[in-house]
């Protein structure tokens, strides 16, 4: 599927035709993605959709089997130092060394990044309430995520890569992470690539969104544009419908009896005359949530295999 995108020369991240297989399973299937500099790019998808695999390619932890991956115009596998030097990375389960103390982690991490800002690091440490002499193994999950975020952010990276960073964390820590995302974007020219299956988070902070479903990009573009393009209609039929009405071009049809909901891409379908032809009237028209859009697209991409429910 092709989506409008900046040229690879302008992109912070440029992925072209990336395919990755693990044995018989295709984790990524011909994925092409271009992330422009500045702003927040949200990558959404259900568990197992391929988000972490995609991010590992960006970090050079996976070698592209087919296709091409470029970060800052460089191949992360061939030039890991140049690429990783500009990236701050936080994963769902930061595997920070448990034997280190917080201050040791910061000093150790600082050595790798010439742009490390000690004052900023200290400010974040105080803000996150981290004790510098505490061992990482004794930190709680939320504190560990904060320590990981601190280490990822204190060198003011050109690209902040967050791989489901707030998964399983309490609302306070999630708030801290989202604030970090916003703060990073506030620094001119910085980019955040944020993967999550918590769509309300993505909806809150993202400028652009890509939807990954079973290894394929099913939707990509500016969030406002995507939301403006989609509509959720509520149809009222005169007679109760036994089975789902057939509406060509609809992404998702759900409901029962006389009330049915149709999610469709407004640019691709003119629903009112179609509904009239089926003997239904449109009784409601709303902009669907990102969650509904995702579910609609995921279901449309692979009929018969509904997307896993997203929170």
């Amino acid at each position, binding site marked *: 599927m092709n989506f409008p995108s900046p040229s690879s020369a302008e992109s912070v991240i440029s992925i072209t035709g990336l395919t990755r297989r693990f044995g018989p399973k295709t984790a990524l299937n011909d994925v092409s993605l271009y992330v422009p500099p500045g702003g927040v790019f949200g990558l959404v998808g259900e568990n197992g959709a391929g988000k972490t695999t995609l991010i590992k390619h960006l*970090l050079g932890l996976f070698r592209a089997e087919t296709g091409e991956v470029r970060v800052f115009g460089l191949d992360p596998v061939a030039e*890991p130092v140049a690429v990783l030097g500009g990236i701050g*990375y936080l994963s769902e389960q*930061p*595997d920070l*060394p448990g034997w280190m103390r917080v201050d040791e982690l910061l000093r150790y991490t600082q*050595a790798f990044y010439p742009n490390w800002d000690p004052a900023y690091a200290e400010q974040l440490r105080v803000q996150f309430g981290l004790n510098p002499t505490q061992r*990482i193994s004794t930190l709680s999950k939320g504190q560990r995520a904060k320590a990981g975020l601190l280490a990822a952010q204190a060198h003011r990276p050109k690209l902040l890569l967050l791989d489901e960073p707030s998964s399983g964390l309490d609302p306070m820590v999630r708030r801290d992470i989202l604030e970090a995302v916003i703060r990073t974007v506030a620094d001119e020219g910085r980019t955040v690539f944020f993967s999550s299956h918590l769509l309300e988070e993505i909806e809150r902070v993202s400028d652009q969104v890509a939807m990954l479903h079973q290894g394929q990009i099913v939707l990509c573009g500016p969030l406002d544009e995507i939301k403006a393009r989609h509509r959720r209609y509520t149809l009222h039929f005169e007679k109760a419908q036994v089975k789902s009405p057939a509406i060509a071009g609809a992404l998702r049809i759900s409901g029962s009896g006389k009330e049915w909901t149709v999610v469709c891409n407004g640019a691709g379908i003119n629903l009112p005359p179609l509904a009239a032809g089926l003997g239904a009237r449109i009784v409601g028209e709303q902009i669907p949530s990102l969650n509904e859009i995702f579910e609609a697209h995921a279901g449309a991409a692979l009929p018969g295999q509904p997307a896993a429910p997203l929170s």
Partner: protein
Amino acid sequence: MHSPLTALAWEIWQRGRRAAQLALGCAGLCALINLAVPEPVRAADTAQAVFGPLFGLLMVLSLFLSMGIFNYTEYSASREWNGFPYRLFALPIRTWKLVLLPMLLGVAAVELLYLAWIKLVWTHHEIPKPEWFAVVLGAYLVSYLAVLWSLAGFRILRLLVLGLGGVSSILVALLPFFSGIFPSPWCSERRDIPLVLGMAVLAYGVAWGAVARQRCGGGRRHSRIKALAERLSDRLPRRTGAFASPAGAQFWFEWRRTGLLLPLYAALALAAIFGPCSWIFRHDPQYTLLMLVRLLVTPLILAFAIGKAFIKPELWSGDAALTAFQATRPLPDGEFVISKMKSAALSTALAWLFVLGFMALWLPLWADTTDLNRLLGGFRLSYPQSWLAILVLSFAGLAVLTWRCLVSGLWVGLSGKRSLMIATSCLQVGLPASLMLAAGLCSQGIDAAVREHPNEVRAAMVSAAGWLLALAVAAKLGWAVWAWSKITPRRTRQYLLLWSGATLGFVALGMLASPREDLWRVEHLYVLAALLMFPLARIGMAPRALAGNRHR
């Protein structure tokens, strides 16, 4: 699965089935040899000298493998924990059953394997008192698991306790054989069997208590010993300044993670074994010589054992993959390898400093050096001009070999490929075992040839050794050219300088230490062997192996 316990047993089998097949394979192979080799051949002196150690080696290997299968622990990097699988605590099974099941299965497996060895391989009563050994073996397995689980948070202490426990078990196993020398009631099987069984039951009780405490959250964090150890470590001087470079930071990381182990173990061995023994036997000149030899090989043995874990990206983890935390450091692959090599060098230097320091105190202060002085006198007479250079070069050579034991496997360990690690380990055991087997099978012919044509046989062996060594040198250099072709010229030059210096040292040692009257013209063998001593090609492979692990 009919019950949770069956499911757990199945899980243990699934985890260890390859090791189990290998262990059974060792026993099966020896049983087949036993059946296939005719009795007259086996009765030959050379065959007995070869088959005995070969079977013994494979038996020990198979027993170690079976112990490894029942090493029922799981590692958690975030928790710094390698103990009883935490996930099992959520199962609706009582703790005593959770603990008992792996122990019972382990004892049953080890005893069955031992029985197979006794009945199929050692068929000529080569092992005296087999029932007694069976009891000790079972008890050791129970104690082994008890130590693994009880000291889950103290990995270094645990290794030490396991090592001491192993040595103690060997001593206990030998007790009945001392009855002729020390007529004591404690040297009788009748008395020792209930004692050993009682200790096994006690070990089970300890393991049960420890796992139960861990299950309710009290066994790990709130350990008073651990808290005390952490308080002590807090008092130790810590680095507080910033690192000068990424390489410096990575070296610190490696040193903290892996470097301390060898010096620590060397110091412990000196304090717990060599110190007391040297004092007890201070009036025995023969023992001084014997202990000196053991002392000098101790860092090598320790480095060989520690090197198996040192070569992995994470020493304590069972997983050989590079962690994302390490893989995302903006550092070239080669620098990771260099920091490991530097850490190994510092580790080796410290370990040898301890050993030499101990020697400097022990030999002049309380050792009986009569025999040693006589030996040294003879050595000085044989090499009047070069004895000091040979001694210095030998010590330096031992230190270099210790370092080599730590780093030569980096190209395997850093690759993250378990199959490669297993294959190289098998090769390290399999090659000598195959050679011994071949020698055993040809023993009659070898015995006869040596008796009838001793000079010709010796000349042929010298020639064959020369060719083999020359081939090995050629292969090493060829492989090195390929391995270093992808590494920056600056690093290649630096390492070549190091290699040349060390190799020149070995060559000089070989030439100086070759027999004064070289009747068999073996000096070239010393020189060729010296060229093989310092790792070259394998070190060149390490960054490439790490890159494969880092960019999968």
